[in-house]
């Protein structure tokens, strides 16, 4: 048996080649500024930028105008309390609706509170009275601020008025009359209902997959552009097996992205004090299949990229779709069946769901078991497809070499004659 056919030597060569390819790919990454942008600059800057944009978490002092038709002590007290709240600021009190509408048209305010003329009379006579709130719907968070504040003030003031109107024998009895069943709302995990705490963790996880897609796609496109046969695989004795190529390359990306993850998932959340209650071990164990799945997915997709720019044209706009399909902003129960199934193709869907639950709600691997399983299945599946892509490329490349060889030989033959 010839030496090179013995399994022992095949494995030894394979591992040596794998590290050779690893080193080569490492050089490729650092030689290419386009790839560097997506592997380093974007993961470095984007999370910071997004956190900065949403950093204020909630809306404070949303601007509102009031039309006070009542002009009484009660109505003024109501306005004062609305203004005193953290979320709403009363910028002006107008005597009539036209002026208030104009203020809203010229964006001096985003909501109108209208207090009717018999506001005070109704309250004195023990009748229910209605305050109207008009809100501009250009920003849902303004509307939310107006509604919550107005409701809060109306309940508080209402309770006080009702108590003073019907003095019961004791304070306790008073309370029982007004609030036979009190209730409390508790916000869990993202306690201040913050926008950054809600959206940024999902974006962080998505950025990992998308930059891998773009970077690896770009490397694939470059390899093809610079290859004589327009193939992904260079003509070299080291690139002589599917496994060593796929494993060598993916090792490069994995090592790089462990560092990137450290920045994106550990340091950035800390810098902007985003929620981070997950067990580190769970996060690490969960991110491993996510990274592997994303890497092999990207390597598979890179097989279809003919030029180095194609990935940017094809993948960037999908980020938005993937963010919505992940079920963080639009609840997954409300996603139509077809899209939900389509979402399982992408590692980001399970990755975002699982990471957010571990990171923000303190779930353990037990609670994210379905997502964890999906990611491992994807990692395995995309490993196989990545191998197929490279296998196909190697065979195609060899065929082309052989064809070329015969063509040259024929040419030489012809010349001789």
């Amino acid at each position, binding site marked *: 048996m010839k030496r090179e056919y013995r399994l022992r030597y095949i494995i030894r060569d394979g591992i040596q080649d794998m590290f050779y390819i690893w080193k080569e790919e490492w050089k490729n990454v650092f030689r290419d500024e386009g790839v560097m942008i997506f592997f380093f600059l974007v993961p470095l800057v984007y999370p910071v930028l997004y956190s900065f944009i949403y950093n204020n978490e*909630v809306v404070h002092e949303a601007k509102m105008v009031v039309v006070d038709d009542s002009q009484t002590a009660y109505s003024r007290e109501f306005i004062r309390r609305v203004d005193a709240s953290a979320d709403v600021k009363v910028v002006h009190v107008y005597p009539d609706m036209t002026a208030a509408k104009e203020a809203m048209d010229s964006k001096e305010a985003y909501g109108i509170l209208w207090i009717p003329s018999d506001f005070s009379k109704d309250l004195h006579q023990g009748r229910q009275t209605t*305050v109207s709130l008009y809100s501009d719907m250009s920003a849902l968070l303004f509307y939310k601020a107006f509604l919550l504040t107005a409701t809060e003030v109306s309940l508080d003031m209402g309770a006080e008025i009702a108590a003073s109107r019907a003095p019961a024998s004791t304070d306790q009895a008073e309370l029982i009359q007004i609030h036979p069943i009190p209730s409390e709302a508790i916000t869990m995990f993202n306690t201040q209902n913050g926008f950054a705490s809600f959206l940024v963790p999902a974006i962080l996880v998505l950025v990992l997959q998308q930059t891998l897609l773009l970077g690896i796609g770009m490397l694939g496109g470059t390899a093809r552009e610079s290859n004589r046969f327009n193939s992904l695989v260079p003509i070299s004795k080291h690139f002589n097996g599917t496994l060593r190529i796929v494993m060598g390359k993916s090792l490069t990306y994995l090592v790089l992205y462990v560092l990137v993850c450290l920045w994106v998932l550990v340091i950035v959340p800390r810098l902007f004090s985003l929620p981070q209650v997950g067990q580190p071990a769970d996060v690490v164990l969960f991110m491993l299949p996510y990274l592997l799945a994303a890497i092999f997915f990207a390597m598979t997709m890179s097989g279809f990229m003919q030029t180095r720019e194609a990935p940017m044209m094809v993948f960037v706009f999908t980020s938005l779709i993937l963010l919505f399909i992940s079920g963080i902003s639009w609840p997954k129960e409300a996603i139509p069946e077809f899209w939900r199934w389509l979402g399982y193709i992408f590692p980001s869907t399970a990755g975002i769901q699982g990471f957010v639950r571990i990171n923000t709600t303190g779930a353990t691997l037990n609670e994210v078991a379905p997502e964890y399983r999906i990611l491992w299945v994807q990692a395995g599946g995309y490993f196989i497809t990545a191998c197929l892509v490279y296998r196909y490329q190697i065979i195609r490349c060899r065929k082309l070499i052989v064809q070329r060889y015969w063509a040259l030989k024929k040419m030489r033959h012809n010349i001789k004659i």
Partner: protein
Amino acid sequence: MTCREAIGHINTVVRREMHRMVSTPLYFFCILVAPLISMTFFLSLMREGLPKDLPIAVVDLDNTETSRNLVRQLDAFEQTSVYIRTGSFSEAREAMQRGEVYGIFYIPEDFTVEATSGKQPKLSYYTNSTYLIAASLLFRDMKTISVLANASVGLQTGTAKGLTNDQIMGQLQPIVIDTHVIGNPWLNYSVYLNNTLLPGILQLLIFSVTVFSIGTEIKQGTSREWIQKGGNSLTVGLIGKLLPYTLLFTLVAWTLMATLYGYNAFPLNSGWGPMLAASFLLVIASQATGVFMIGVLPTLRLGLSFACLFGMIAFSIVGFSFPVLAMDPTLQALSTLFPLRHYFLIYVDQALNGRDLIYSWGEYIWLLGFLFLPFLIGRQLKKALLYFKYIP
């Protein structure tokens, strides 16, 4: 160059560009397929307007006819669906961590007995704000049911005392807030998000296509020939090159308008004119911005990266999800550099609120202002086109 000559040159460049366009499938994908996928995705995703039947867990420690009745009423709400009933809170919390429920409704022990005997049992409801939309919808439903429970007990005791309904309500809740949401009365999320998301995707694609169409000329070394065909004038060359894309993207943008305001009947209080104009201006303003991008970074991959990153940031900084006014002042200033921001402001004034044009003309001017961007970078771009050597 006379006007007639210029038109002749533009004609030549347009023909040349059409040939290039049809021979590159990537254009077909970015101009037609990608917008179509996005439109289908987002409009079908949110076709219900509001997510329905969001799962909650009920922890009912009382478990009487009254408490079960309360839960049944809660379940009957459109947005809420009781997914599990359990006797243990930690079980409910785990379901929340598993992502199976977004809220927990907690009914304490002896709720019924205490409520009727005036001991004030307390209802608690928990929402998982990691999922902001689901949490705020469930908050609304669970709050309503709690207030209703309060009122119904109040009504019972009040009627027993011989008070009229009006008197009781005046006592239970003296002041009520009546909300009127202008333009989008059903709080439809599809209206709220898609009116800006989809034009935003269009803007992103226009950036990329514009940068790509100019950048490939440098990459393939055909830029000299292009400029020559344009009579050695960059302006003529650019107009000829971009015109086919202007037409196609305007067509796509107007198809989007027709889908949003015609087929889906989203609020259009201004009539068609202002929105068709705004979407056309968005197209050309984005093209101009694209020219500026490749002018600043005249290497295809860098210019394209710039286009992609800028285009993606637009979705956050435009302020349709998180208002610009709540952002840092630097970001507020920065937001004006995005054509989409001005388009969004026009949309709010015109389609959503139907305000007078006087309130939005400034934004139309802003969009037109983007057309000056290519002039700022013209000299550098021309140099790059004529002398720049592509380094792979």
